[in-house]
């Protein structure tokens, strides 16, 4: 354990010492943004800055997302354990935390390396950012030290503060840890969004004197929400893979049951974080459009537009995998079998939605292909390429996923309240009305100009949210005092576990892809409209080039995660004491 502490400590001290040093080097605080020339971008060992910074930043974000997310749901699970007095929850929460602890050192390490790389490769930009954000790096460093302290205290006092009032102290430490962690992320987000949509500076980039104004850019809060939710989904997906691996490697039925249950919980967390994510993404995109139409169009209609087709494929595979896992889970209970016939309809909706989503908007074709098809859009499938169709599809897919989830919850419980049939009718009517509204708004968007298309997507999103919220509320009342049937944990097929591996792989790749988009919408600006990027890397790479790079980063991350899993497992094993030398 000590070496991890040491590593974190070193990284933290390194950050705290290195950053202000560069801050001092900055020139007059009231000057406009500097304009770097090609000579201001050093090559180190033949490398230009971007690949190094890209890889390190992405690695740091993967790990940080995981490390920040796990304590959030761990506190929630711990609380559930206290409220239900079920020891299993506490044990699982502790196990989740153990995985996260091993990842923490790597997070600090990559964070330190990222900071170093940024200062080495982009000294002018970093000097300017330090000037804009003034003493904030110090606060960040302090928060980081505080986060480390709280994390270690939270983890190592787990068994010491186990019952009664002490447990509540432990929970409070957990809440505090999450508060610090979330603040830490929000501060770092402000730097990223400042580069995309600068605020708190004038047109030439002269800081107007308020760090708070520089933080409060138009994209800050949308990004905060988006990353917050995505982190939870991501954290859930990764611990899900851990559980799936342990399930597959389990030797006893008891172990299988435990890791099956853990995998189920992790998948549940991942879906919970994932369902509202498209809406947060929608808000972020709407704010980007409001800030600069140009930036919005660059992302959605220009060079980067194809990436959203890839995004659709990834989200589609995530939804399919998560649903498949839930369907397999129906077999765990006797009550689940009666829902099995429903599965094919849900699957049909998902596949149909997925197909609509992968239909590209405009195809880049050779003249011969244009001739064969008779236009740049397919006469029948062409209309599926535009936005209202895609919005309709994503909302229907989310509804289908939520339905799968509801069926799964119902599989193990039978309501006892007398009005249960009314509740079921109301929920069924809710689904039907929402579906009609979503499809109706989709058609409305079809026949109307662009402003209406965009306008009509909001009611669609609200319909999906309404189903989720109202159905959960009605069910919460309906299942009070419900009869629960035993769940045969561990009765899961081997194949179902592979769905839990699709999730983290797809999430990791998707996260890197979206990071590439978020960074690329700035086009050739370091700080949009204020500071140009004049490095040789100022171009936006092709999708294939970016995809290959992302795959390499993902591979490295997977290797790190496997190492982390191994570390957290090896902590449990104890070598047998050598048998005493017999005889003598």
């Amino acid at each position, binding site marked *: 354990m000590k070496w991890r502490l040491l590593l974190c400590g070193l990284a933290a001290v390194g950050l705290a010492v290195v950053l202000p040093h560069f801050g001092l080097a900055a020139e007059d605080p009231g000057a406009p943004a500097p304009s770097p020339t090609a000579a201001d971008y050093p090559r180190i060992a033949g490398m230009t800055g971007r690949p190094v910074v890209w890889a390190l930043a992405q690695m740091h974000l993967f790990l940080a997302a995981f490390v920040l997310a796990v304590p959030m749901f761990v506190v929630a699970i711990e609380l559930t354990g206290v409220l239900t007095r079920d020891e299993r929850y506490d044990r699982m929460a502790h196990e989740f935390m153990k995985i996260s602890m091993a990842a923490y050192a790597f997070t600090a390490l990559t964070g330190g390396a990222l900071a170093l790389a940024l200062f080495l490769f982009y000294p002018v930009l970093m000097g300017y950012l330090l000037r804009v954000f003034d003493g904030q790096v110090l606060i960040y460093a302090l928060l980081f030290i505080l986060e480390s302290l709280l994390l270690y205290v939270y983890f190592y006092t787990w068994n010491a503060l186990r019952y009664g009032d002490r447990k509540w102290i432990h929970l409070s430490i957990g809440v505090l840890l999450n508060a610090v962690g979330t603040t830490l992320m929000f501060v770092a987000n402000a730097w990223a969004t400042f580069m995309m949509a600068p605020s708190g500076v004038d*047109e030439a980039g002269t800081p107007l004197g308020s760090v708070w104004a520089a933080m409060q850019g138009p994209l800050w809060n949308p990004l905060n929400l988006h990353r917050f939710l995505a982190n939870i989904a991501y954290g859930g997906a990764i611990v899900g893979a851990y559980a*799936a*691996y342990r399930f*597959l*490697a389990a030797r006893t039925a008891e172990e299988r049951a435990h890791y099956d249950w853990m995998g189920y919980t992790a998948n549940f967390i991942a879906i919970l974080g994932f369902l509202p994510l498209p809406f947060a993404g929608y808000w972020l995109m709407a704010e980007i459009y409001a800030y*600069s*139409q*140009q930036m919005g*169009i660059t992302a959605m*209609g*220009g*060079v980067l537009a*194809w990436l959203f*087709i*890839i995004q659709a*494929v*990834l989200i589609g*595979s995530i939804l399919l995998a998560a649903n498949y896992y839930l369907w397999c889970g129906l077999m765990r209970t006797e009550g689940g079998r009666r829902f099995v016939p429903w599965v094919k309809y849900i699957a049909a909706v998902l596949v149909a939605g997925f197909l609509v989503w992968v239909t590209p908007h405009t195809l*880049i074709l050779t*003249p*011969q292909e*244009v*001739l064969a098809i*008779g*236009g*740049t859009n397919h006469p029948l499938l062409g209309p599926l390429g535009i936005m209202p169709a895609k919005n309709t599809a994503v909302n229907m897919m989310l509804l289908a996923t939520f339905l799968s989830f509801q069926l799964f919850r119902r599989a193990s419980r039978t309501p006892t309240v007398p009005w249960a049939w009314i509740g079921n009718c109301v929920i069924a009517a809710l689904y039907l009305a929402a579906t009609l509204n979503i499809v109706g708004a989709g058609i409305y968007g079809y026949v109307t*100009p*662009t*402003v209406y298309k965009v*306008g009509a997507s909001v009611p669609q999103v609200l319909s999906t949210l309404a189903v989720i919220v109202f159905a959960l509320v009605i069910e919460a009342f309906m299942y009070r005092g419900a009869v629960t049937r035993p769940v045969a944990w561990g009765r899961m097929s081997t194949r179902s576990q*592979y769905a839990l*591996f*699709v999730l983290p*792989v*797809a999430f990791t790749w998707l996260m890197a892809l979206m990071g590439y988009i978020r960074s*690329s919408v700035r*086009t*050739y*600006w370091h700080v*949009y*409209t*204020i500071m*140009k*990027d004049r490095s040789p890397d*100022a*171009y*936006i*790479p*092709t*999708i*294939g*080039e*970016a*995809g*290959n790079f*992302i*795959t390499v980063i*993902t*591979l490295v991350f*997977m290797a790190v995660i496997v190492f982390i899993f191994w570390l957290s497992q090896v902590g449990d094993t104890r070598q047998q004491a050598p048998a005493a030398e017999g005889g003598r």
Partner: protein
Amino acid sequence: MTFLRVTLFSLAVLLAYTLFANILPQVQSNPPAEEEIELGSLDRAGQIAWGERLFSGKGTCTLCHNKLGRAPDMLAMDLAEELRSRIEDPRYTGAAKGLEEAEAFEVYLRESMLEPSVYVVPGFGKKGTQDRESPMPRVDVPPISLTPTEIDALIAFLQDRAGVEITVPLPAAGTTAAAEAGADGEEEAPATTPEEVIDRYGCAACHDLDGSGADLGPPLAGIGARLDREALRRAILDPDAEVAPGYEPGLMPGDFGEQMRASELEILLDYLAGLDGGEPKP
């Protein structure tokens, strides 16, 4: 064993995503080149052609001014009629009111680029502002950052399209401007012969030309006798405004105005106008 299987499975998933990213169209977007070009020798036609390039290139106007309805589609409308009615609109309070037409257009166009909210075309305002605020960015500040000479060229291009006298000055000798090539992805060098243009934009895939035999669009032999240069220009830039009888609207791409360079369009027009029923000229 489990470990190996899980690893292979994850790698396969990863590989599938990577392959997918590699089969999509690959476009690299380069920053605009910053070397200076000499403008002093530009004549009127050159200025208009430059304005047209700015319209779809550095000015990024076509991002919104297109047929998708984000902003008025200036290349498709009768610009003169539209500008006249806007300037006469009682809601318009800008500086172009009461001026002689060509000059009024210049003042109006400049104003609309530098202070877009002076007059908002009904239905195109920012949401919830009752058309009092325009969503259009000022073109003289980053990220667009057009220079005064470039704005002049844009006005010249638009005045030319509206069919009025061009009132903006030509760039003074010694003026330079940043070349905007490569602003939207990698651009090839412009085509210099009609054959190259026709090949690059695939005209013969749909139109019968030199015996290509295609019949999705009207044959181009003798087109110069049927349409004059301006009608040809319209037919290329806005193909669905008028469709030859017996042919489907919507087949010909409407974005040649954005894809082609002004010089290429002129070469193509010269060539097509020359196809007057006699032997096609080389």
